[in-house]
């Protein structure tokens, strides 16, 4: 539908809202930028003044930063892959009619409504605990060695927990997308001889492509800043094994009280987020255009 150009100037009407949002965004950003160029450590009030790019220099030469960036990317990437694949799987399953479908759908969706801290605690204490956990119970029952999840495979454990939280989101979006798949199209494909996997690959998956892009973009925003799950379970450890960028900033700011350094890391996080966003938009945005 063609958008008609209006006769009225809409700028003044939009200005208050846009101005408020801009203010809302600019002030914290400006403060962060400002602090990142200051010597500012709460434990040492005597050291003050303009630091130049010292904070950045120190950070960028700090191997911990690079490890945490890498961890962030691993976490985001793995969770995306897991949630999208499971989401597509559940979407296809829930599109069939089977007994107990509504209950199953509710169960798959439920984790989305649990607070990150709570779900992390559930996983930590009820499932992955090496002594009391359900997994250790199962491995003992099967006669397998017990895994101490957060020690032996810490990143994998975090990925599991975060994926568990985000599979419902992917499923919800993709189930909705499945419902908009034209039934006549499926029937036409059946007449053309598509069945099973060829149907999925040639008809269903291309149809879901656009929604998958949406899932990836939205999840990215949230996954870049995963924090509670790490704080509650591993506190970034062992060593730096599960320290992602937001946990790194937290350590700088609230464990080392280094406001300047933490702000600099924050700015680096913003840059990273923008790189990821640019990458995503290049890859996926053309999917979002109308076909």
């Amino acid at each position, binding site marked *: 539908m063609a958008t008609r150009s209006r006769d009225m100037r809409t700028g003044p009407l939009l200005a208050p809202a846009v101005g408020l949002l801009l203010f809302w965004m600019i002030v914290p950003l400006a403060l962060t930028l400002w602090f990142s160029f200051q010597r500012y450590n709460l434990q040492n009030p005597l050291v003050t003044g303009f630091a130049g790019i010292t904070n950045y220099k120190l950070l960028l030469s700090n191997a911990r930063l690079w490890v945490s960036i890498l961890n962030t990317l691993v976490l985001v990437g793995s969770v995306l892959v897991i949630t999208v694949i499971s989401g597509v799987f559940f979407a296809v399953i829930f599109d069939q009619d089977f007994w107990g479908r509504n209950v199953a759908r509710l169960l798959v969706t439920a984790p989305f409504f649990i607070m990150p801290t709570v779900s992390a605690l559930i996983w930590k204490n009820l499932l992955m605990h090496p002594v009391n956990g359900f997994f250790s119970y199962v491995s003992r029952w099967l006669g397998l060695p017990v895994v101490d999840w957060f020690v032996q495979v810490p990143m994998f454990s975090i990925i599991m927990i975060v994926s568990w939280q985000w599979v419902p989101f992917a499923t919800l979006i993709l189930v909705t997308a499945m419902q908009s798949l*034209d039934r006549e199209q499926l029937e036409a494909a*059946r007449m053309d001889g598509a069945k099973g996997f060829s149907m999925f690959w040639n008809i269903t998956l291309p149809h879901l492509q656009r929604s998958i892009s949406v899932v990836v973009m939205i999840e990215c925003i949230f996954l870049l800043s995963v924090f509670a799950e790490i704080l509650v379970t591993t506190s970034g450890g062992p060593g730096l094994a599960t320290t992602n960028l937001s946990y790194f900033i937290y350590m700088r700011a609230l464990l080392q009280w280094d406001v300047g350094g933490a702000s600099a890391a924050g700015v680096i996080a913003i840059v990273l987020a923008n790189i990821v966003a640019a990458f995503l938009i290049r890859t996926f945005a053309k999917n979002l255009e109308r076909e």
Partner: protein
Amino acid sequence: MATLSLRNVTKSFGALEIIKGIDLEIEDHEFCVFVGPSGCGKSTLLRMIAGLEDITSGDLLIAGQKVNDLPPDERGLAMVFQSYALYPHMTVRDNMGFALKLAKVPQAERDVRVERVADLLELRPYLERKPGALSGGQRQRVAIGRAIIREPSIFLFDEPLSNLDAALRVQTRIELARLHERLGSTMIYVTHDQVEAMTLANKIVVLRDGRIEQVGTPMELYHHPVNRFVGSFIGSPKMNFIKGRVHSVSDAGVEVLLPGGGTVTVPVSAPAIAAGDDIDLGVRPEHLDVDDAGPLAGTVIVVERLGNETFLHVEISPDLILIAGADGACPLQVHDRVRLSVLAAACHVFAGDGAALPALARHPLATNPI
């Protein structure tokens, strides 16, 4: 190439029986049209033939082979859907070549066949476009192309033209007729449109409520409907029905007493009808003429001028309004008093149960019944 037979075919959704026993033979090369009121089961029947719905009972035979349990792609059929159902993410080329790709036809041969069909349907310039970038008529042609390319022995169409505008519908209708002639395949076509049914069909199947009411050539159905339902369903504007009483029965036909006192003698044979029986007299609008000596008197309440002809809605009595076809130049106005005469030879007499009394003479265009 292929005949199709339905032998006492039924279909139930749960406890609800939708198709209630259909027996039908469709010959090779035939253009068979299913018509009927909305919800009578036309689409369901077509989908059963296609293999998209399973058959509850009865047999479906294609070229003499029972195919009840064969999946859709192995029946040698192709279907054109009302919504076209093109694959939006594929180019026109891939849309048309999809079935061949699934059948593992090599790319080179696929291209040759796609291009041949594209030439036939004048789609060559659009091969690399996606369906979203095509007009309705072009999409329609792609959908037909997708069906043709599989070289099916039978084509199935479910209201394929209903999404097109009037002009395009006429054009595509003619293209379909030519296509049928050129390909020579059997076609089964579902439509609501009188004109499509009358112009395209060799054989029309009138369905009502999951049952066949009548099967015949268009002219046979038009001139010799077997019952009141078919009479009113085929033809536009609709056949008029006048409640009348049998005055006398003779070798010349049935003399019917009209409201207002006149009589007409309709040449039908009436073994089971006697004087005094209530019947319905069916008269098509073109068989009612404005005539000062006619037996029916009334007032014009609506005048529909189409240019080449005029339809007059004439109120004979408060519960009897007749539609009469008149010349395009007919000067009559609303509220004018008119008298109508009835062309008795073209009338139909329907007995109390709705069945038509057989005409004494067949119409020249409907002489050999199927």
